[in-house]
């Protein structure tokens, strides 16, 4: 999909000086710590670092890092992410989850609440039932529990009723991870036409109909767990198809998120709600047309 070029609106001054790979970073302090995104070239003086990434230079005391502006998701402990299970590795008791990062995340069997909600040791039966909990292609929301030194991330879904399989009627929207604004809550009600969303920090956003949020799977109802062995529509159980207004509202929220993403605006509950309300006069199908995007960007630039 081609996007409207970002030059359509008045340009804003860059809030911070930017470096590209290979650009020199002056680091006059002795014993400067080279952080992520920097390197020391053999040709340079000791006081010069070189950026290896395009981004903003950040200095914390003697540590110099370059924070990338875009690109794939870089995990931090405590982030709420939305991911898709790509593999069930029974022998190593873990799921591999695609979270739009540089490598797949791992969700250990010991990091999920077991059916029945009791605390107990994991048994071999649990291993055999792993696919009944999360199967391949299942969408889950999870929290980053640990980031290893090599960047591998471990997830957990232990918060019942908030994290776990996403089994409501909804739609997944993939955006650039950098555009998701970090906040204290990422599983939120949008306050628009009964819609709610899981704003995964990794750039996957799950938009769903809030009235069915009670079906959020924390593993509390064992029967439903067992019935969900086949990830078909039938397994979604009591969830019914959304009504027409609900479906239109879902579309509007989805397109609002994509419009924000394409325009490089940050995506938060407030901005999604604002764009949804502002676009009421436009049918959802027209929200990704260049005409609408230009109008949105012009409206925003006018007040910048």
């Amino acid at each position, binding site marked *: 999909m081609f996007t409207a070029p970002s030059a359509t609106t008045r340009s804003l001054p860059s809030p911070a000086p930017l470096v590209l790979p290979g650009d020199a970073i002056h680091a006059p302090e002795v014993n400067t710590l080279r952080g992520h995104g920097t390197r020391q070239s053999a040709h340079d003086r000791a006081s010069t670092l070189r950026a290896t990434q395009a981004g903003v230079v950040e200095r914390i005391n003697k540590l110099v890092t370059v924070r990338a502006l875009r690109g794939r998701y870089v995990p931090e402990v405590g982030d709420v992410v939305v991911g898709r299970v790509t593999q069930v590795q029974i022998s190593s008791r873990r799921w591999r989850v695609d979270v739009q990062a540089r490598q797949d995340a791992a969700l250990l069997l010991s990091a999920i609440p077991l059916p029945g909600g009791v605390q107990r040791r994991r048994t071999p039966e649990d291993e055999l039932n792993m696919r009944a909990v999360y199967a391949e292609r299942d969408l889950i929301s999870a929290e980053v529990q640990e980031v290893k030194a090599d960047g591998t991330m471990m997830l957990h879904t232990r918060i019942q009723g908030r994290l776990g399989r996403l089994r409501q009627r909804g739609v997944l929207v*993939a955006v650039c991870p950098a555009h998701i604004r970090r906040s204290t809550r990422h599983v939120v009600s949008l306050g628009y036409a009964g819609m709610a969303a899981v704003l995964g920090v990794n750039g996957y956003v799950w938009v769903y109909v809030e009235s069915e949020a009670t079906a959020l799977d924390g593993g509390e109802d064992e029967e439903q767990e067992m019935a969900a062995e086949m990830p078909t529509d039938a397994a979604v159980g009591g969830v019914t198809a959304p009504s027409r207004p609900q479906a239109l509202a879902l579309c509007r929220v989805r397109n609002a998120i994509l419009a924000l993403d394409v325009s490089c605006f940050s995506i938060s509950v407030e901005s999604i709600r604002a764009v949804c309300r502002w676009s009421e006069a436009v049918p959802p199908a027209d929200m990704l047309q260049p005409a609408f995007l230009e109008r949105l960007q012009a409206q925003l630039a006018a007040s910048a």
Partner: protein
Amino acid sequence: MGVPELLSGDGLRLDGRREGEVRRLTVELGTVSGADGSAYVEQGQTRVLVAVYGPLEPPGGGGSVYQSLLAASTAAALESCASAGRTPRRPGRRVHTMEIEENDEILDEGECAGVPEKPLRVLPPATAMGRVRCEYSVASFASAPASARAFRAQRRRQQQRHRAAAAAGDVSAPPDSTAGSASRPSKFERQSREAAARIRQVFEGVILSGGDARSGGTSRLMPPHAVVDVFVQVLQSDGGELAVAINAASLALVHAGVPMRGLPVACSATALPHQRKLVPAVDPSAWEMRQASLANTAMGGVPQVTVVTLPSEADDRMPLLYVDYQAATSLPEQPGIPPTRATGDLFEQVAHLAASVGCPQLHRVMHTAAVAHLGQELARREWSATAAFIAAVQ
């Protein structure tokens, strides 16, 4: 055969440029939404679109096996390149990969003098060996004469197949059957594969992976199993496609936040006939290339060079990363005429002009454009996080 004059009396080329001037360069980043990084570059009438995905874990998991396979295939490809450099299958076409840490001059004297004899050298800069995958394709409408030729060649092959089938008594095969067409790659497919291999080689030397001790904490930025996918689409070709594709790819990789040694900049160059001499000139258009190759026959040895430099590797010099050149040794030897080849001198002048005059011009434009675009993205993101933004749409 008369030699065309490609420079006016004032030393201007047909489009009004001097020898050292590159064509107008236009850069746009973020043209493909959904890609991790993308760039669209116009240099004169050559237009190239590049989308980058990654670094990402190759689907299907089993990272290490996959990677070793990839590395093996890359090594095999390089090996075949190297052997092709020695055997006369494609004479006159050579690749030099040079160690940038040790290569002090722009061109090592020995490399130039021994142009046709030196085989490919693959040296340590390839820190991301097997970690870059590149797909290079040229749109069928990219250049009218080329696509017309391709079309005619395809028709001819089809007719031959049909005749062969008819001779074998198999009359049921329809004349436009394309069965078996995948057996041998066409000339264009081969050229695309070659260009893809060149681009992959360049970026294997530029992208930093975790294994490099001096890369400074890139293991998280480029994990051990991760690969980078580079998709190049040439939309319009008017000379210097490989150089423009490399420039577009390096901008797209910057946009995607892939850790790199620097911003590689490529420039093509050739020598144009002027008053019975050959004058080095950068960034030739397709027409100039064609005319120069006519002069090739008459004057012998017109080099066509693509040079990649890393301008930011050190302040005072422009290390040469990569040279791809085509000298005139591919001409069939005729009795009485010695086999023609670009002289070391002329080759060196052409490569030097591309590296020291062409590349800095291109680098300036690319750097400015990339910083401007990324700054714009950052400004929008930060501004749209404020309350004023929300108020604006309510």
